[in-house]
């Protein structure tokens, strides 16, 4: 077999996937860039060419800036909460010798198989006016009237943490699981206490997993569209809601394009910083 045929073979194998990526991702994203410089007239027609109007509007109108800031804030709080809630269970599953360890791991995978919309709406059953928590509080006489616990910033964050926590636990677990146990024994035999060897050995070695989990949580939270609609109030709109509003409701394609690009660039910058310090490959490890 000649080398020419050999070197053509991988390209042949990849061509369907590459064609799909090219036509369904790369070219369409180029189209957003082109469209973002178009203009929408009052009559609803799109005018081609290079107009900066939409860019200027998005850059100068505080409305967009505020929602972007709000979106990043929500994503940040969600990520921190996921890290705080997720590290300990990941540590427990990785280090425990109990016989139910496999069960815990299977349970950890379970949320990935349960629909996002169902997990989100499940909180209405808990926090709603006639939900579990309110009926409990009222029946015990702790509160006289049901509390309004839903449709605010906190319930949006709660829904996001609930959705994203498994991503965090899984990523941290994978990096903890990969730590050579001899290192822990070594640090112990050199006189470190349990806590010291955790701080000096385990924690630093688990940081790549914590970083990968945080990246996933942040990017997914910042791009979320459903949670603010289902669990948020009218003032809790996030950036993706703006994009949907511009494109699907107002049919303002150029404006929607600018907004999509802003989201893409901001989150792309986060991914790039992450890639510089940790490397994208870390995320792939949880699939191994």
């Amino acid at each position, binding site marked *: 077999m000649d080398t020419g045929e050999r070197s053509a073979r991988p390209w042949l*194998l990849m061509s369907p*996937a590459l064609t799909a990526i090219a036509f369904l991702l790369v070219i369409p994203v180029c189209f957003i860039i082109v469209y973002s410089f178009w203009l929408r007239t009052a009559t609803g027609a799109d005018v081609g060419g290079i107009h900066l109007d939409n860019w200027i509007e998005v850059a100068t109108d505080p409305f967009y800036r505020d929602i972007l800031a709000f979106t990043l804030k929500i994503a940040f709080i969600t990520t921190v909460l996921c890290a705080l809630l997720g590290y300990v*269970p990941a540590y427990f599953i990785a280090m425990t010798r109990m016989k139910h360890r496999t069960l815990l791991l299977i349970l950890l995978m379970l949320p990935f198989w349960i*629909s996002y919309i169902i997990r989100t709406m*499940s909180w209405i*059953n808990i926090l709603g006016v006639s939900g579990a928590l309110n009926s409990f509080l009222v029946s015990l006489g702790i509160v006289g009237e049901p509390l309004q616990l839903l449709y605010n910033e906190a319930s949006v964050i709660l829904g996001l943490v609930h959705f994203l926590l498994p991503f965090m636990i899984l990523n941290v677990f994978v990096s903890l699981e990969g730590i050579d146990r001899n290192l822990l024994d070594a640090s112990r035999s050199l006189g470190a206490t*349990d806590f010291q060897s955790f701080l000096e050995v385990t924690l630093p070695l688990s940081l790549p997993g914590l970083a990968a989990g945080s990246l996933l949580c942040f990017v997914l939270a910042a791009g979320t569209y459903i949670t603010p609609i289902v669990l948020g109030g009218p003032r809790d709109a996030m950036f993706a809601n703006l*994009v949907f509003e511009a494109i699907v409701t107002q049919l303002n394609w150029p404006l929607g394009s600018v907004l999509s690009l802003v989201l*893409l660039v901001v989150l*792309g910058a986060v991914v790039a910083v992450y890639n510089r310090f940790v490397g994208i490959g870390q995320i792939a490890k949880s699939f191994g």
Partner: protein
Amino acid sequence: MLKGWSLIRAYTVLVYLFMFLPVAVVVLLSFNSAQFGSFPMEGLSFRWFVALWDNDAIVRAFRVSLLLGALTALISTTLGVLASLALVRYDFPGKTLISTALIAPILVPEVVLAVALLLFLRWLEMPKSFPLLLLGHVIFTLPFVLLVVQARLVSIRRDYEEAAMSLGAGPIQTFFEVTLPLLIPAVFAGMLFAFTISFDDITGTLFWKPGGVETVPTQIFAMLRNSISPEINALGTVMIALTVCLPLFGAAIARRMAANRGG
């Protein structure tokens, strides 16, 4: 030490409760016989499941979701297996760039992906349609299939394939008689992954779906606009049963097949 460890265990239990209690409540309430499905529960009944069966819109949404998920799984896994073979078994210039590009749909926010594809279609002057929905689902399930299949392919030793080749098998015969049988668990896993992601997807689907077509998640979303009802909880329970049982069923089949081959 022991005290610290029991704290860690208690913390873990609490986090697991946080993850599963709300879902358990959905399942519990779907059996509530009361007219307005909330607490306190009045009694157990299957009436909401019967109501689902009689609801044409929901049955139709189920058909759309199942078809969409199955086709997505089939196409995505085919593309993913072929590309994984190239990425794991061959060296070529630009490999890192290409493997990053193929994973890119995971990192691009779904909304942006949805807008981009919609815009491209508009430029082509094609209306929203079921094939568009399918292509959209293929593109964001592809990276997951790739990751699962590649992880498995790396662990299949090349010696087997080289042995087959040295005995005179061609590359295609080697693939079907050596590589594919060894890869089958990952192929199934990839298909299940793709099916579930497609079956559960809502954001992209809301952008891409043609008017009048609903999948189960968009149907639930539309129903939530009114308020939460026991019917939605029942639908949620059916979805949970389906998407949770499917992987367990798949794992059982995989184990069965492995056992048969061993014996």
